[in-house]
């Protein structure tokens, strides 16, 4: 029978026996969030699909399949959701996800706190995407050093940059480079075993007081890790070097400092509830700070999150014991304080000893609807030996990539990269997703909708271009990438290599009652995958 197969995209995968032994290789075409290979339902699907399989067994055409070569740079939520949606929307797409680390999953692995294991469950879904036959993960491939952006754009039809924000906003105030002043990102990467930070060694023994600048969820994470009894952390996947340091830590007081008031605190209810519930923790929230103005009420009126956070802070303040008992750990929520400078200790050792704050008052900001903090000219010092700045991440540009330095994002419209901020000209075949696209805000799920928008733009663009466009002509794709990397002697870490690392981490972790013992040494990680 004559069947024109240009529109058929079936690939053959695993053996299946049907009706007395007709063996066929067949693969489910739909990406199912919860496909269970062994369920009777899946069995039904496979048996019935085999009918069609038998029909078109000889119709397999390599010209139609894998004709759209896509590269996603970054294997965090933005990268994986983008890959998942691309694979689903385009049966002819082959997606390669590259990451500079040998381990995938971005901040799900290196950002989510060790005592939040349920938040990491999404890794299961991402692993299923990586196992899709049209998808590959290539770790230890760094955009900018292993391969340039322009090379990627030559090798692939579509390049989606989803590499997030690996740098920090800076305050730009005196003393910021004193030792003991770190960004929260560095501290988080350290306790999460990021291979770039296993030598980080923050000094937790020179002081009993840490100041955290910022009151978002990352600020709460670092405060909580500093204040939780280490015994509670011992059964998490916290990096062992961090656990050891925390066991010896002399820090007993943590200040969470915000420029504005409790009605503007950026954290969310779950994290706030959690930190307020730490056993034997003295929590200090000044009643005076909880006086809200009508402007505050206006802000909170349409914002459910802010209302519930404010309620939690109010309740915590009124149910306070009046002072900490001896030896008790302390958490202080400090509002209306803007850091002005970091002061060095008297022995001039180059270490921070104190933060000088300017008191602030809220002022309405024309147009934005949100109040901003304005300095009042009054100052106050807070002594400390450790400062963690949790004021926001920032993306890093690469060669050949248009970049908006003031916002720290790639200029784009719906994920399509703009050639420059001023001209409405698009970079052909280049897209962004995630923090690199919209700034370092939101939750994991935010990337779900972000990826939908970016993939929507890609699909529209593919439809618009005809058969003579650049999308129609073949590109080397995966083969081209691997060849280039081999020529440069770059060791590529595949997903099954990651599974070796994963399995080793879990095995090692089970020896000490942890879900995993993170491997943090670059060399060892790469060696493990060559075995």
């Amino acid at each position, binding site marked *: 029978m004559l069947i024109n197969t240009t529109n058929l995209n079936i690939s053959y995968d695993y053996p299946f026996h049907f009706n007395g032994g007709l063996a066929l290789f067949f693969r489910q075409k739909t990406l199912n969030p919860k496909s269970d290979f062994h369920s009777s339902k899946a069995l039904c699907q496979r048996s019935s699909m085999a009918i069609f399989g038998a029909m078109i067994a000889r119709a397999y055409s390599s010209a139609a399949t894998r004709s759209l070569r896509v590269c996603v740079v970054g294997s965090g939520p933005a990268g994986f959701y983008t890959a998942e949606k691309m694979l689903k929307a385009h049966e002819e797409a082959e997606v390669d996800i590259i990451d500079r680390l040998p381990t995938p999953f971005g901040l799900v692995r290196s950002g989510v706190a060790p005592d939040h294991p349920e938040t990491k469950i999404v890794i299961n879904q991402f692993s299923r995407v990586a196992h899709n036959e049209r998808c590959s993960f290539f770790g230890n491939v760094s955009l900018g050093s292993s391969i340039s952006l322009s090379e990627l754009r030559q090798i692939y039809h579509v390049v989606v940059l989803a590499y997030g924000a690996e740098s920090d906003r800076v305050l730009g105030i005196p003393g910021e480079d004193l030792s003991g002043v770190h960004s929260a990102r560095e501290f988080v990467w350290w306790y999460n075993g990021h291979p770039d930070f296993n030598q980080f060694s923050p000094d937790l023994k020179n002081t009993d007081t840490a100041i955290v600048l910022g009151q978002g969820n990352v600020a709460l994470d670092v405060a909580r890790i500093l204040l939780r009894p280490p015994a509670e952390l011992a059964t998490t996947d916290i990096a062992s070097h961090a656990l050891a340091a925390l066991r010896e830590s002399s820090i007993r007081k943590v200040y969470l400092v915000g420029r504005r008031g409790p009605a503007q605190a950026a954290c969310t*209810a779950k994290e706030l509830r959690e930190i307020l519930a730490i056993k034997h923790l003295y929590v200090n929230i000044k009643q005076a700070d909880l006086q809200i103005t009508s402007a505050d009420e206006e802000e909170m009126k349409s914002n459910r999150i802010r209302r519930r956070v404010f309620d939690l802070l109010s309740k915590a303040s009124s149910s306070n014991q009046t002072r900490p008992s001896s030896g008790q750990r302390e958490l202080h929520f400090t509002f209306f304080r803007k850091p002005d400078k970091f002061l060095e200790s008297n022995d001039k050792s180059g270490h921070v000893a104190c933060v000088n704050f300017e008191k602030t008052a809220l002022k309405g900001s024309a147009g934005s609807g949100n109040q901003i903090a304005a300095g009042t000219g009054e100052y106050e010092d807070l002594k400390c030996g450790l400062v963690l700045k949790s004021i926001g991440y920032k993306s890093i540009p690469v060669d050949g990539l248009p970049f908006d330095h003031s916002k720290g994002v790639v200029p784009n419209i719906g994920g399509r990269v703009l050639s420059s901020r001023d001209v409405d000209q698009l970079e052909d075949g280049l897209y962004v997703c995630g923090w690199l696209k919209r700034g370092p805000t939101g939750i994991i*799920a*935010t990337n779900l909708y972000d990826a939908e928008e970016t993939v929507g733009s890609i699909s529209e663009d593919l439809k618009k271009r005809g058969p003579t466009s650049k999308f129609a002509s073949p590109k080397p794709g995966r083969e081209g990438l691997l060849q280039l990397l081999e020529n440069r002697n770059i060791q590529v870490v595949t997903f099954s290599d990651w599974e070796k690392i994963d399995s080793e981490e879990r095995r090692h972790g089970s020896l000490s009652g942890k879900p995993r013992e993170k491997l943090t040494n670059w060399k060892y990680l790469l060696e493990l995958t060559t075995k």
Partner: protein
Amino acid sequence: MCQITVCLVSENIMLASKSLKLGTQAIRGLSRVSLFSKPVAQATITRRNQYVQGGELFSTTATSSADVENEEKKKISVTFVDKDGEETQIKVPIGMSMLEAAHENDIELEGACEGSLACSTCHVIVMDVEQYNKLEDPTDEENDMLDLAFGLTETSRLGCQVIAKPELDGLRLALPAATRNFAVDGFKPKPH
């Protein structure tokens, strides 16, 4: 089965490939009839676009034996309405969560944390206020996650926390439309 095979072969290829794409739900019904007797959640599908020639409604029911009658007593009917308005009606055993039921029936409801109250991706909107009121109040933990849900409404719930019970028979759940404003902290993208 043979009939369908022949029918599809004789159709043009666009139809065949569309059928394949539609595939799984329609075909699942077919195969269940003869090959497998283990009952699974039944699915009657109402679709706006009919893929089979002649525009026939493709609907099947499982035909296992005395099990069915018992099953019927212990299941409720739930309808999911997706963002394009397409409806899918399924039968959900008492005690099963809507998230699990959706996944068993290939309904596209995300479940990033697989039901552990650590995300908001299984957010569903109860379409009828009276049905919403029949549900137990959300816990603080669920409310904390609902805070972060996109397109939150007065009758929103997390699908993993809505458990089938007899009073909910006929429940109608809408899957929220993806919104353009997807920032948690109220950031509004610059209009362009």
